[in-house]
């Protein structure tokens, strides 16, 4: 009876097949997906002429349709990139925000959409950097979270960042569908560049506002949360504050106790 044809008609077969298919697709996807670059980039100021020229070609092929052939901007389609600096290019392209997949209120972070190698991003950054002076990619010494002071970073974070990104860095809503994204698993370089360049709705925190050392403190604070430095007392329920607590107590919490009450009152009928 337990021959293969019989098993094939079992209702469990469908579930098993579905699970197999999903697992295999997922594994294959994980194996082949393009990985976002993680290493901090070399300073664009040191780029060679050759890199700049390759960067220009990449720019023309991938960015010029919105930003214009000389990166001068194209009305509402895309802003001018003269003077945005290499930091902005690195941030936007290596987080997968640019090239923009589709028009929307905000370019979403998408590590899977990064279709350039580290070198190509560097070349594009060098090209944009050559158009006019702007913030360069950060130096590695300011990206080392272990050298930062998370306590000072926390103070800076609560003063400058928490009102949008939440005091636990879990993100928050802005007007009309825009949002301040979740800061977990963002590379130190991208955190630094975001502060430096103020992408999308974010304000610019230049070196006079928050010094490079202080930026490193902020990175140290965020990395501390990421590594579980603030997770005491059990499950955090998504770090949503009282909203998560309310959801939990009105579902699991009260259901547990009402379940006990039903069990106690059962003898009545």
């Amino acid at each position, binding site marked *: 009876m337990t021959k293969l044809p019989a098993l094939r008609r079992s209702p469990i077969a469908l579930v098993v097949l579905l699970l197999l298919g999903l697992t295999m697709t997922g594994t294959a996807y994980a194996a082949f997906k393009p990985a976002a670059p993680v290493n901090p980039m070399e300073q664009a100021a040191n780029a060679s002429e050759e890199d700049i020229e390759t960067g220009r070609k990449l720019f023309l092929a991938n960015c010029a349709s919105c930003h214009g052939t000389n990166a001068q901007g194209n009305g509402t389609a895309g802003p001018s990139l003269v003077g945005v600096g290499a930091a902005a290019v690195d941030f936007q392209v290596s987080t997968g925000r640019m090239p923009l997949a589709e028009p929307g209120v905000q370019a979403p972070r998408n590590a899977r959409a990064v279709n350039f190698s580290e070198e190509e991003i560097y070349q594009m950054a060098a090209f944009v950097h050559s158009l006019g002076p702007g913030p360069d990619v950060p130096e590695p010494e300011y990206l080392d979270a272990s050298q930062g002071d998370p306590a000072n970073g926390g103070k800076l974070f609560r003063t400058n960042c*928490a009102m949008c990104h939440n005091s636990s860095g879990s993100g928050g809503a802005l007007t009309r569908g825009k949002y301040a994204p979740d800061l977990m698993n963002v590379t130190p370089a991208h955190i630094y560049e975001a502060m430096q360049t103020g992408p999308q709705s974010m304000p610019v925190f230049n070196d006079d506002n928050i010094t490079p050392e202080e930026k490193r403190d902020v990175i140290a604070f965020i990395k501390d949360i990421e590594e579980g430095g603030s997770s005491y*007392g059990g*499950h955090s329920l998504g770090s949503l*504050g009282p*909203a998560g607590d309310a959801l939990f107590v009105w579902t699991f919490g009260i259901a547990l106790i009402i379940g006990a*009450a039903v069990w106690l*009152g059962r003898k009545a009928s």
Partner: protein
Amino acid sequence: MTTTRVPQGADHLRRHGRTTAGAPPTKPTLPPGVGWADERVGAAKGMRFLLNKVFPDHWSFLLGEIAMYSMIICLITGTFLTFWFVPSMGHTVYDGQYAPLQGVGMSEAYKSTLDISFEIKGGLLIRQLHHWAALLFIVGIALHMARVFFTGAFRKPREINWVIGTVLSLLAVIEGFAGYSLPDDLLSGTGIRAMAGFMQSAPVIGTYMTFMVFGGEFPGELIIPRLYIAHVLLLPALLVGLFTLHIMLVVVHKHTQYPGPGRTNDNVVGFPLLPVYTAKAGGFFFIVFGMTALISAFVAINPVWVFGPYDPTQVTAGSQPDFYMWFSDGALRLLPGWLEFTVFGTTWSFNIFLGSLLLLPLVWTIAGVYPFVEQWITGDKREHHILDRPRNNPVRTAVGVAAISMYTVLALATVNDILAIKLNLSINDITIAFRTLFFVAPVVSFWITKRLCLALQRADRDKVLHGREAGIIMRSAEGRFEEEHEELDPYTRWPLVQYEPIRPLSLTEGPDVNERGVSRRRQMTHRLRRSMSDFYFADRVEPVTPAELAAAHHHGEQEAIEAIEQHSDPVNAIPGEVPHGRHHDDH
């Protein structure tokens, strides 16, 4: 025990619910401890009264106990917390174990909360237990209140206890807010800031009131010590005092019971306090305590170290109060900004005033007066100890659900930012949707609930008359197929037919015009009462009468029942009365 007890009133009816009924009249030998106490304070009489109290058994009667036990857990854990908490806004610098805050300036209240969490053994567990129990306390109150409302347990003679319960729920919310504000973290400070804004929005006296409460400008250094005394002394004393009264009135009134065979307005069917209910209720306390402890051990609540110390220049995204304050916060998020205006150099902040200082008392006033309003409409001055099944009072149930829907819309508006990021929606669209829903949801939910109740009543009626569908298909000799209907046994039938339908005044008083078509002179209030009575009771399904049941059984055939339903008066009419709106045909 020297007095002879003379049986009185309904004692003979109540007796069968007691296990000690017919106790010998001779002086019983008391256990040593009880005897000692009885000879000095006469404890035996009171104990006998209490221990013989009978409580009906139903899980929904335990919802209030969830609140009661959570309150006790809060009292126990709260006492523990007072040993270490420092209710002071004095400045200090953190030097404890939690690295991300080392060297950060903060208040002593916040520092001591961190110390309870990180330095005191078991402190974090007790803190979380205190907070989870506080949330469960209010969830328990809300559900208990809903149970009492939807079963009509607030009717005479329990109106006063309903009012006490309403006040208790308000006190619980204020108590929760006060406790939530004490740790002086970024979220609780934001909450106090909101409270200051609420008070300032009061016309004319707002500023004076704020200065009085805060002892000057916000935040000052007084608010936390003041809230502390309110939280650990004033409000708990009021809560425990009123709660005791609440329970005493339950003992005086005796517990209500769901309709069932043998249950009348003059008896209570259930188990005595000793031993059954002592075991059940006592056990339930340990279950609630155990489960709350389990939750507190595994799920973090209010991680104040994540929020950071309060600083008036800072705020965090996702600032929400605990859920019981949501409806007010949500109202502020929904009220349009143009409600704030300036007249002769004075600012009138109705955008805040309406959602806070007006809404908060309004909600509890509406809840508190409801029993009296319903009694005025029905004119029913009799005592009720048998609960309504919610479907048997469709409009009351629908009004309750509509009110809950309104409250829920306001409450959910508080998390509009969380909904926006979690559901990838625009916060502006969510706000517009909630503004619309605030007006639409109660109407729709009223209508749906009322229709559902009426449909359920009709289904009950159908079940009583035609029996339960057995699921057995019978084939007769001539080849006809029909489904068997099983007649209900009297025990199952009783709850479906026992209720008293309430008829609208327009039926019981007769039409609004006399025979000549001249409208009767009535007072304004009476006209209002008539129209409210119509609103409540015009649509209703009458229970199956014994005559209808007998007819259905004797003929035992579908046609006979249909004939009765069609040719006799409609089910919503009273024999001998002229149905409203049909008097022209009959005269």
